């Protein structure tokens, strides 16, 4: 072993030395199963003798006591309690015979003599198996007895103090009130306390004043921003989709949902349910749909040539891993490929759990569908109502669909007598003006020219029809025409059909007019009725037109006397557009001609070719999918559904009028479209293995009896009282947020490989209390911050430095560097620049140019205007491949994967950010202005004001003296270099306050720059 690698044994040694009373680690000289034996078995045996029956050899399983001690087919017993020599396991692992030896030499694995000795000792000692501590549901222990009982304020303190007394340590004195106020405000809101809150707290010297401050902070909307931001690390929330292209994604409504949920103190079980399965709740509200954005934060790969299914599978796996990590603190990722080596999670468990998440509609699509529309500002309630109404109408429609069988049959029967329109393709097309006519693949004809004029289209149709009873003209909107209209009038996209004539041309060249007897259109403009096209005395001013519905398709049917056509007869159609008021050009833009020989042709909507094809088949020949399609089509046209459909249309129009964006959500596939979930060999989606049914992890409590077998059931299972982990993991996370380290330090791993809890009974007490208290995080936080433990001074005495370097015993208060966003927010806040605007699209504060090098998009970082560049860090746009650099330097998160614990480094690059980043210079300039405007007239007074504003305490004379010295030095230098002084004082904020002059402002800016870099400022003390 060298100095870099520190094996498990070394770590254990140190751990034991450090915390030998951690109950879960040591049992005198006994072998601890979880710590020492399970890893050996997991590494070497479980592959063939583990939970997974599929891979099990010789009928032996070693992961549980009964299996290990059962009689095998061979007659031997693997583990005989107390008798290593009789245990077949020991015989096999010590055998020299390659046929006998375990693990088989072919695996390349071999036990070390020390490992064999461990197994022997373990068997000799009774071969005890034990369940890992965190897999046993928590119970509230009795509060331990303590000597210094008047120090304790609540249960937390009893547990902490009992431990301290055991260690012979005493708690630190309570921290001064100013520091306490700053600490608790930063912990609860991520911002320093406002001067008003601070003043009120200092003036009120009653015992309850602190609790009043805490309540006020918990009620502040800043609370939701601070704790919501931490949750977003778990949710891997970002504003782009990741991978190579990394295009934008509009999912900030989810971020706002999180903030709102925290502020409303949504109980953690409901918070869980809505995020994992909001779409599966009965009549989900818009807000519940937005909540499912939690799992739509997975990456989407839009690189050319990728297999969308591959990335859908990766996203689903990410959802599985993230769910288990966030709620149960277990690492599940490795079970994708093989049964978990250490924790009781088999590969089958993995894919059974995966099956719950494998049924959502999303599939690595560029448009991020499915989505829900969300109002951009203000109108969210209205949009929510409209959405709900729409969902309601859609359900009504669905219900009606089920009751329409008879009507559908009748309709189909009627169709047999219905007008059958035949689209006809002209052999030649001519326009009287310079327009070109082009036949389109959909049977329509597109007219184009530079400048539309008065127009006559003449179309020759080849022989083919034998009998004619009518002709239909469809006019179709087209993007190529003004306002994407049906006509070519350059003002409004309208047309005016001023005449229509039809002639039959016999093979001998004789032409016979065919008179139209009637005309009917689906829509005619007021005063411009379709009949006018038949006999038109005033074609310059009259005809058929469709304003204002110029962007919708329309049709007109012109009937004739039934007319038999001799073989070889051509049809010649002319369409006149002679309208010229106030200018010409009112011609068809794109149109389609159909003919019919049906009796009494009627104006009926054209049936799509695909539906026609199905209808031509006998009902016996139709597949279920065919029937589905016909039903869906019929519902969309049937008169029975018309009123509902109209209402839906109306709602859609209303919704369209509300300014809104679309944000991705989860939506379950209908049952009949459910995917078959199969295990994947080594996690490879191209190597599917056995099919599996959805199930929660087998080693934990059973699936709740009455819960639905879907994600909603998973949420119930996670938040069941019987789940041993969910509450522990949640309270531990909050604890770590306040005290810097979790009671279980490995927040991400509560499994057998994680670190044991420093105060197991405290963790369990908090977990049970959390559940008993209705899963309220605000209550939990209040309990933590009201404890005497939390209120201790964080000063490090020599004794504590030696005894408890990492403050695991908590004989002092928390003291550590603030998180990336908090440092930004704090600097903006004390300098007076911070905008408290909440919610909405993410913003782009200043960042150096040239960082985004997106080859496949024109996305650019554009500094947001006005107050938007001074908003809290949670609102900063996160591009996954190029996250905001200054926050990354302070261990911020690029949100590619779920992060349970940020590191907390201390580097020179951080110094460069707070010293030189133009954002922090701007803060220094703003703070120096406050010092001048709000402070007293003297430099000493102004500097003291600056220190007080930033640190929220009275500065010492020595501190002021150091900065006054700096001020004087800089003042002198600035007088030598007025231009430089001007830049330092005003590069970002512009005009210097009147009457002070650039040199003094520059000197104060330098002072402010120092204040914003003080260790105390960057640290929660």
């Amino acid at each position, binding site marked *: 072993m*060298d*100095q*870099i*690698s*520190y094996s*498990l044994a*070394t*770590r254990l040694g140190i*751990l034991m030395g*450090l915390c030998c009373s951690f109950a879960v680690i040591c049992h005198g000289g006994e072998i601890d199963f979880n710590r020492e034996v399970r890893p050996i078995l997991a590494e070497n045996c479980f592959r063939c003798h583990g939970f997974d029956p599929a891979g099990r050899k010789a009928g032996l399983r070693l992961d549980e006591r009964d299996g290990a001690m059962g009689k095998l087919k061979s007659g031997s017993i693997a583990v005989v309690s107390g008798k290593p020599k009789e245990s077949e396991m020991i015989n096999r692992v010590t055998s020299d015979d390659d046929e006998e030896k375990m693990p088989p030499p072919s695996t390349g694995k071999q036990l070390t003599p020390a490992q064999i000795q461990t197994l022997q000792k373990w068997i000799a000692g009774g071969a005890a198996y034990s369940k890992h501590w965190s897999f046993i549901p928590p119970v509230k222990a009795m509060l331990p007895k303590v000597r210094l009982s008047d120090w304790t304020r609540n249960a937390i303190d009893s547990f902490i103090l009992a431990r301290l007394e055991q260690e012979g340590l005493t708690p630190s004195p309570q921290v001064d009130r100013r520091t306490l106020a700053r600490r608790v405000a930063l912990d609860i809101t991520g911002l320093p306390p406002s001067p008003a809150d601070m003043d009120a707290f200092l003036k009120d010297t009653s015992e309850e004043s602190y609790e009043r401050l805490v309540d006020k902070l918990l009620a502040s909307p800043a609370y939701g921003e601070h704790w919501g931001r931490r949750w977003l690390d778990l949710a891997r929330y970002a504003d782009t989709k990741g*991978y190579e292209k990394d295009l934008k994604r509009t999912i900030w409504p989810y971020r706002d949902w999180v903030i709102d949920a925290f502020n409303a103190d949504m109980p953690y079980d409901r918070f869980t349910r809505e995020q994992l399965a909001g779409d599966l709740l009965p009549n989900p509200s818009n807000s519940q749909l937005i909540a499912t954005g939690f799992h739509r934060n997975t990456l989407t790969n839009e690189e050319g*040539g990728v297999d969308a299914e591959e990335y859908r599978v990766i996203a689903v796996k990410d959802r599985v891993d993230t769910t288990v990590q966030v709620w149960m603190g277990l*690492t599940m990722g490795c079970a994708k490929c093989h049964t978990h080596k250490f924790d009781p999670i088999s590969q089958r468990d993995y894919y059974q759990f995966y099956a719950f998440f494998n049924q959502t509609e999303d599939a690595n699509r560029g448009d991020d569908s499915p989505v829900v529309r969300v109002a951009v500002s203000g109108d969210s309630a209205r949009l929510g109502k409209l959405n709900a109404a729409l969902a309601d109408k859609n359900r009504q429609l669905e219900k009606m669909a089920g009751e329409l069988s008879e009507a559908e049959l009748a309709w189909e029967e009627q169709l047999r007598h219905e007008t059958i329109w035949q689209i006809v393709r002209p052999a030649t097309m001519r326009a009287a003006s310079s327009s070109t006519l082009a036949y389109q693949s959909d049977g329509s004809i597109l007219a184009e020219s530079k400048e539309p004029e008065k127009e006559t289209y003449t179309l020759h149709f080849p022989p083919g029809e034998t009998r004619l009873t009518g002709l239909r003209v469809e006019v179709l909107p087209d993007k190529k025409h003004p306002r994407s209209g049906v006509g070519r009038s350059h003002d409004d996209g309208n047309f005016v059909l001023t005449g229509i004539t039809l002639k039959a041309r016999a093979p001998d060249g004789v032409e016979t007019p065919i008179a139209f007897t009637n005309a009917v259109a689906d829509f005619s403009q007021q005063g411009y009725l379709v009949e006018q096209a038949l006999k038109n005395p005033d074609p310059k001013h009259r005809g058929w037109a469709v304003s204002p519905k110029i962007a919708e398709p329309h049709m007109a049917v012109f009937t004739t006397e039934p007319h038999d056509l001799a073989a070889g007869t051509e049809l010649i159609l002319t369409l006149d557009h002679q309208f010229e008021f106030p200018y010409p050009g009112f011609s068809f833009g794109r149109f389609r001609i159909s003919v019919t020989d049906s009796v009494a042709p009627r104006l009926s909507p054209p049936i799509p070719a695909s539906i026609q094809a199905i209808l031509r088949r006998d009902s016996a020949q139709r597949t279920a999918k065919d029937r589905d399609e016909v039903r869906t089509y019929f519902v969309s046209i049937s008169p029975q559904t018309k009123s509902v459909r109209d209402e839906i249309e109306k709602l859609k129009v209303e919704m369209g009028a509300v300014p809104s964006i679309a944000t991705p959500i989860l939506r379950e596939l209908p049952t009949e479209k459910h995917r078959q979930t199969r295990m994947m060999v080594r996690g490879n989606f191209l190597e599917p293995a056995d099919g599996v049914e959805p199930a929660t992890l087998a080693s934990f409590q059973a699936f709740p009896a009455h819960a639905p077998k879907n994600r909603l059931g998973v949420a119930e299972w996670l938040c069941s009282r019987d789940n041993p982990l969910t509450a522990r993991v949640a309270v531990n996370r909050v604890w770590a947020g306040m005290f810097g380290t979790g009671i279980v330090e490995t927040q991400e*791993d509560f499994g057998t*490989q994680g670190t044991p809890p420093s105060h197991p009974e405290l963790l369990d007490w908090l977990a049970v209390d959390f559940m008993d208290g209705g899963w309220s995080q605000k209550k939990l936080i209040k309990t933590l911050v009201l404890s005497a433990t939390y209120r201790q001074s*964080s*000063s*490090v005495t*020599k004794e504590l*430095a030696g005894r408890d*370097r*990492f403050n695991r015993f908590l004989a002092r208060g928390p*003291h550590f*560097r603030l998180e990336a966003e908090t440092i930004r927010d704090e600097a903006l806040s004390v300098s007076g620049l911070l905008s408290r605007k909440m919610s909405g699209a993410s913003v782009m504060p200043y960042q*150096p*140019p*040239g960082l985004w*090098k997106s*080859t496949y998009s*024109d996305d650019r970082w554009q500094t947001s205007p006005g107050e938007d560049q001074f908003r809290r860090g949670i609102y900063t746009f996160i591009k996954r491949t190029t996250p905001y650099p*200054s926050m990354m*330097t302070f261990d911020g998160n690029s949100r590619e*994967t779920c992060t349970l614990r940020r*590191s*907390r480094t*201390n580097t*020179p*690059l951080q*110094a*460069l*950010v707070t*010293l*030189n*980043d133009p954002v922090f210079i701007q803060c220094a300039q703003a703070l120096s202005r406050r010092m001048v405007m709000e402070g007293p007239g003297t430099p000493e007074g102004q500097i003291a004001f600056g220190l007080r504003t930033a640190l929220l305490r009275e500065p010492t004379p020595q501190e002021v003296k*150091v*900065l006054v*010295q*700096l001020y004087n*030095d*800089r003042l002198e*230098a600035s007088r030598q270099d007025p231009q430089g002084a001007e*830049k*330092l004082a005003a590069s970002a904020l512009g005009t210097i306050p009147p009457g002070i002059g650039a040199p003094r402002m520059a000197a104060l800016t*330098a002072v402010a720059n*120092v204040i914003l*870099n*003080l*260790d*105390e400022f960057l*640290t929660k003390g």
Partner: protein
Amino acid sequence: MNLKHEYAKAITRRHFFGRMGMGIGAIALNDLLSGRSAAVAAEKPVGQPSAAELSRKIAAIAPKAKAVIYLHMAGAPSQLDLFDYKPALVPLNGKDCPEEFLKGKRFAFIKGVPKMLASPFKWAQHGPSGAWLSEVWKHLPQVLGDIAIVKSMNTEQFNHAPAQLLLHTGTQLLGGASLGSWATYGLGTENQNLPGFVVLTSGGKTPDAGVSVWGSGFLPSIYQGVQCRTDGDPVLFLSDPQGLDRAGRRQTLDALRQLNEMQVQAIGDPETVTRISQYELAFRMQVSVPDAMDISRESKQILDLYGARTGYVSDLGNKSGDVRDLYRGDDPTFANNCLLARRLVERGVRFVQLYDWGWDHHGVAPGEHIPTILPIKVQQIDRAFTGLIKDLKQRGLLDTTLVIWGGEFGRTPMQQNNNAKFIGRDHHPESFTMMLAGGGIKPGQVYGETDELGYNITENPVSIRDLQALILTQLGLDPWKLAYNYQGLQQRLIGVEGKAKVPRGLLA
């Protein structure tokens, strides 16, 4: 980040190196306060790793290399058109690929039965090893005596991002620690005034796998690569604010230090002590980084040796569309980066990672047409690479600097598109070629061999794991012991399974 592991590490280190009777904090504080009372700090714990700590790590086994310059050709250059001469492909050119090569294989883009593709270039033997090189190399033959060509590289991944991640971070998934971060984690840095792990890019794009290929993954973020840029500040926020000169910055830092020292006396948190030293380091970096990054300090002779050009700033990153259509053979970005790499290594930087994008030549776009694009890409790097080897050698740095050149996988002996306008090859994980030089590598050899069509390896295969083990070993780190506990596993660069062997034949 795991405090206890850091703690364990510190304890272990202390145990093995008794000279460190006090924690880093105490040392730093003593350095800073020089003789003033440090009663509070005398028994300071070691907090999170700091740059100060970086400099105090000591290698585990005798190192051959002190530094690494890794030149990654992102996209994967075609070994069959550069190094791996296969005359047997000539008569097969345009013929269907034999079925035996296709059975059970998964290709990124090839569908159906592809045609074989001979190299469109002329080939000749060069140097003491008689290595075959295609005609696109103009300068490389001059240094064949100093490098080893490894024709038997192979990998497990056949898409760019996963293959790049596997190569550089030891796992095809996001979240692993990169080579450079392992190296600085294991060894620290030799120059406290510069980052220990520096990244430079060219080709107009970052590598396909994004910044994760130089991330620190589960290691503390202090070990992540620092990208140095050639336009603007070479390191973000390196410049003092407008109007504050060096003397002014010094005065502010003096005041800051005095106030922070008061904080040390009042609270006694060793992190404050570390912070004081980090501000001093930042101050020194403000001078040392621009100095290291200023190639105008080099002579014309040296600039010419690399083909470097001072003051050149590529604008490819700001172009839309396919930047490969805009490539010019005389673009000096890569050459400038090679020269910078030497300057950085000279100053004690542990790991310099270059990424050059634009080597993914499928033959489905003009920028992927091997007969025209490969000579352009090689022109961009040929003289620079050759110059780098020569320059390191003439300065006596080659012996202690391991230079690595290569892509994330190879390219197929088959043409990707059977009837395309452009000629290109698909991804080929089974075999590819890399170049290694210096740092204890046996020079002047060609290592490994492939079959007559260049499909499979027939001799001395070198896996990605083997290469990773080789790099760590040359740096004096034991690849099997260099580990970090994360998510319940002893994470290693060479993988949890540890299936790697150092290719001894490559070592001098």
